């Protein structure tokens, strides 16, 4: 995927953009509540959260459209907070683009360069180059309303890149496109951003978009950043219940630590006993949640044997019995909702990797669901 070509982000280098304890209040309500964040040069960073979590406000403060109530924004050591938007080396691609309807595509892209008073031939050269990069050269004379949604999106991208900003802000960059087009465009946009080599902060509520495009993701909720990490880190090692639940789907078991060793932990929950094959930072007898992703679970009628686990010690652990209550066949995979003995419902997905699977389970079957201890994540908050 595109990000593999990307320099290891967020490691080693001095921070290019540093946010320090940013707080933004609107009257009594706190939109952004003490966000600190370092962003490395050249990375694409996604702020991911549901609507109203403060991610757009944070982005608008980077653009200069809102003033932080307190805190500091340093871009290459330069304090941005006091600068009005037109003096910041930052450009933004607005949600649903905000293209100027009375100007042609060409003039939209040239708008920013003209404000800088660049010579005419330099403006022409840079606009042409930018239009070529987003493959819109033949459309220069059209007005925005004469373009398709995907073309408008590319004009907006060209307009925000043509001034060669130090920092590019994307506000729900693909939110206005339909699903098929969005998937294709995501990688195109990443390619263009890498060609230009600009550092980018994007805001999205779509986790697939964030995971496809970004090298690192910050999960936001109620004005705070809960976890920052690469997409894989966030998905496989969420640091709290909110993140685990927000990214993808997850089965959570509430339980109590009964055995706490350096290399494994045993947690008892009403549904089953969990053998976690890695140590945790916690105390014995502590109340915790055990999380397991649906695709990392097995489902079959027979009870799992030693060969089914990666460690035979786990036999007798990490397994629960139940009945299939609902199943959804999605083509590539099937989702099973299994009611366990305690009444809890777990979700298990199984890839349909054979075309005629005789062993496909039917609604109402009595089944065993099981999982590996190495796939369990223990959450203490």
């Amino acid at each position, binding site marked *: 995927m595109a990000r593999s070509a990307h320099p290891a982000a967020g490691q080693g280098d001095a921070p290019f953009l540093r946010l320090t304890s940013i707080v933004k209040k609107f009257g009594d309500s706190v939109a952004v509540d003490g966000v600190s964040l370092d962003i490395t040069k050249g990375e694409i960073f996604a702020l991911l959260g549901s609507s109203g979590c403060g991610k757009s406000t944070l982005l608008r403060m980077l*653009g*200069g*459209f809102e003033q932080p109530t307190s805190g500091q924004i340093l871009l290459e050591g330069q304090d941005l907070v006091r600068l*009005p*938007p*037109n003096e910041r080396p*930052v*450009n*933004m691609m*607005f*949600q649903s683009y*905000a*293209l*100027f*309807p*009375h100007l042609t595509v060409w003039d939209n892209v040239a*708008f*920013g360069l003209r*404000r*800088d008073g660049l010579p005419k031939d330099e403006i022409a050269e840079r606009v042409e180059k930018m239009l070529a990069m987003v493959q819109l050269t033949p459309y220069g004379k059209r*007005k925005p*309303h*004469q373009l398709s949604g995907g073309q408008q999106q590319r004009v907006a991208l060209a*307009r*925000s890149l043509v*001034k060669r900003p130090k920092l590019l802000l994307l506000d729900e960059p693909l939110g206005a496109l339909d699903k098929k087009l969005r998937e294709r465009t995501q990688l195109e946009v990443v390619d263009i951003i890498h060609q230009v080599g600009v550092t980018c902060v994007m805001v999205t509520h779509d986790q697939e978009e964030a995971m496809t495009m970004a090298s690192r993701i910050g999960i936001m909720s109620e004005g705070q950043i809960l976890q920052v990490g690469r997409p894989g880190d966030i998905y496989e090692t969420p640091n709290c219940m909110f993140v685990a639940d927000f990214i993808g789907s997850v089965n959570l078991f509430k339980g109590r630590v009964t055995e706490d060793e350096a290399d494994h932990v045993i947690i008892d929950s009403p549904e089953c006993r969990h053998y976690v094959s890695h140590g945790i930072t916690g105390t014995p007898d502590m109340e915790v949640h055990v999380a397991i992703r649906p695709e990392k679970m097995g489902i079959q009628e027979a009870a799992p044997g030693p060969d089914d686990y990666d460690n035979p010690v786990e036999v007798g652990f990490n397994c629960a019995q139940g009945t299939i209550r609902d199943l959804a066949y999605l083509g590539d995979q099937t989702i099973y909702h299994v009611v366990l003995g305690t009444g809890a419902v777990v979700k298990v997905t199984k890839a349909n990797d054979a075309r005629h699977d005789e062993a496909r389970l039917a609604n109402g079957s009595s089944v065993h669901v099981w999982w590996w201890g190495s796939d369990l994540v223990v959450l203490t908050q």
Partner: protein
Amino acid sequence: MWQGILESFMGHVGRRFVISVPMVFLLLVFAMPFLVVFKISISEVDGVRFVDLLTWVDGVLKLQLKFTNYRVIFFEDDLYLRAYLSSLGFAGITTGICLAIGYPFAYFLARSRPEIRPGLLMLLMLPFWTSFLLRVYAWKMLLADNGVFNNVAIALGVLAEPVKMMNTPFSLTLGMVYTYLPFMVLPLYANLVKMDIRLLEAARDLGASPWQAFWRITVPLSRGGIIAGALLVFIPCVGEFVIPELLGGPQTLMIGRVLWDEFFSNNDWPMASSVAVVMVLLIILPLALFNKFQAESTQGGRR
């Protein structure tokens, strides 16, 4: 299938009917009176009645069209042309001042907090609740030599003696601006309130100062409102009679008063009708040309 044909037929008829209602209205209240006026303007007067245009006397069909009045207007008496030009001038100045005052007015109205907007709009329209004549008369009281403004200024020692304000181009223009300002503000407001603030943010983001963003984005996008407001002020101002009559003076020659004099002082209906026909053409022709140009330049439509 028959039902489909019936429906499309009904749809067709229905659409024609909907269009025909305003067409009939325009025919009745604009085209017919205009034709009547035009007919009078080319008629010969015989005592107290107009001579028919077509007469049948002794086997001779006679069509008699009298264009003398038009010759007088255009070539013989320069009073009319001066009055037209002066009217266009006053209407133009009034429109310009209304735009200069009305634009910021409408802008702040459109940017005010949504809760207080209905109240502000109500205040804008409040003057319409009192009679137009009454309001114009009130200006007489304010502007007269011993009127409120002069008296206050003298009492405060700002002026030594009264300044003549009534019956001057100043009082006329003031009265017209005062009367027609809401007609400028309302279409501008309707346009500006719809404007997407994010466009201004985008302009600022791309390096425009607030002033540049205003001139490059807000003003071009409000062109529709500016044109509508300007027409609503300019057109009635050209033919305005009441305000020049009450607030104007010897220096404020306007075609509305000339028209009135022809009708009621000279009792020369054909001449008055000719003046009216020329005035209508004077306004309609540039407007039609402008509309044509406008339609061509925005082919494909704007959002």
